[in-house]
């Protein structure tokens, strides 16, 4: 299926549910080479310009750590969500940023305007994610992974004499790693990893159901330019000191939102029947008043029911009944705290040094 200009598999031959379960119980490999990867020199002037868009203190990022963050527009809306890491490559310090394929144009305009010599590396490096509790066992005989590597740690390792960027991260709610590897060694690495009988290639379908069960937001669904990180329930990812900083886009909007009541809130939903909840469906209260919309829905292999994430108006008391319009019929749905499935990360430390 076409996805952000790439032809991507929804699933490989065993199907979405099987791939999903294999990641939860063992491990699975996702080719996410379509995503953006860029290296930006760690220089004071570049960082200051980037801090207009990224709500972190970029000059204080700990070496070899990654952070979930955003590019913000002047209203505090999300231009993109991304992972930013501080890492040395060949004795030079960089910010390594991984961002959404569908937002390359918007993001890169910003990156290049802040750091003209920023280097896009996704044309020469593939990006693979290996996810699931057994990922470490599949990887450790092939790539050197230190025992004390925690979730959101990042480092340079080697494969076939190629330097590769290894981060302990992913977007499935499971422990796992992302590997940025030069194209010439990429196929060898995949073949090598797949020799382990308990792992398999996984497509976009299971990537979506895994992230939804983990309650993780997806750009274009829970996030867009008209939603701020606070409205999306992601205020934990904002550096609160930066909200006082005039140099940050939308800083006033964001600090006001932190103090005041929001108009909408993000919720998790579970179907009470076998019907599937899907993106765009409308939610109602028991008096037939529209109260919100679903932004992502899927079948949850772990719960054996359909699950969804959506936004509803804040005034709505979640002790009351919620109905979802499914093919012109109203069906009762249940509110469920996010995430649907407990995250299983190898614990991390603090954000800054």
């Amino acid at each position: 299926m076409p996805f952000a200009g790439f032809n991507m598999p929804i699933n490989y031959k065993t199907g979405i549910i099987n791939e999903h379960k294999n990641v939860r119980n063992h491990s699975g490999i996702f080719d996410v080479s379509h995503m953006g990867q860029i290296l930006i020199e760690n220089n004071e002037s570049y960082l200051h310009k980037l801090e207009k868009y990224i709500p972190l203190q970029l000059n204080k990022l700990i070496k070899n750590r990654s952070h979930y963050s955003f590019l913000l527009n002047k209203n505090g809306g999300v231009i993109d969500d991304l992972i930013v890491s501080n890492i040395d490559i060949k004795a030079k310090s960089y910010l390594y940023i991984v961002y959404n394929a569908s937002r390359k144009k918007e993001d890169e305009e910003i990156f290049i305007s802040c750091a003209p010599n920023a280097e896009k590396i996704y044309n020469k490096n593939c990006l693979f994610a290996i996810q699931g509790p057994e990922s470490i066992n599949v990887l450790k005989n092939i790539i050197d992974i230190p025992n004390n590597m925690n979730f959101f740690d990042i480092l340079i390792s080697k494969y076939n004499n190629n330097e590769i960027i290894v981060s302990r991260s992913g977007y499935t709610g499971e422990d796992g790693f992302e590997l940025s590897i030069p194209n010439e060694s990429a196929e060898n690495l995949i073949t090598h990893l797949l020799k382990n009988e308990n792992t398999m290639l996984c497509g976009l379908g299971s990537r979506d159901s895994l992230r939804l069960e983990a309650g993780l937001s997806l750009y274009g669904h829970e996030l867009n330019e008209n939603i701020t990180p606070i409205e999306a329930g992601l205020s934990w990812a904002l550096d609160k000191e930066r909200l006082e900083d005039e140099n940050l886009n939308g800083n006033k909007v964001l600090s006001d939102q932190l103090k005041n009541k929001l108009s909408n809130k993000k919720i998790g939903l579970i179907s009470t029947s076998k019907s599937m909840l899907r993106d765009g469906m409308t939610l109602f209260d028991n008096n037939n008043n529209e109260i919100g919309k679903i932004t992502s829905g899927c079948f949850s292999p772990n719960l054996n029911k359909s699950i969804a994430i959506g936004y509803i108006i804040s005034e709505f008391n979640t002790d009351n009944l919620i109905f979802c319009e499914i093919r012109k019929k109203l069906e009762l749905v249940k509110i469920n705290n996010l995430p649907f499935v407990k995250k299983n990360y190898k614990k991390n430390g603090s954000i800054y040094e």
Partner: protein
Amino acid sequence: MGAYMSEKKYTKDHEWVSIENEIATIGISNHAQESLGDIVFIELPSVGNSVKAKDEICVVESVKAASDIYAPIDGEIIEVNNNLENDAAIINQDAENKGWIFKMKISDSNQYSELMSEDEYKQFLEQ
């Protein structure tokens, strides 16, 4: 195949139909099953309903999408495959046999003869 079982025919909406003693059995083709992916739920039609060809009569939900199932010909729904209620994945395992969805008493057998043969359906898929 029984002596009175006709050849299996196909619609452009990827359903198969076979007829025995004026009773049509209908399901989705193996090709349809493959492109839908894991099927998790089917909303079966109501027994006793009279339907016209092309009417939407039930819905198959897969992990990827919801797909309408259309009546291939005019008739009355006389039986549904209740096994699918608890295990819709039977359609993935055996779409053109155990995965049958409903049976109809048909009113116009000419409509049936206008459907595609297996070879014609294969050609249709290749287009």
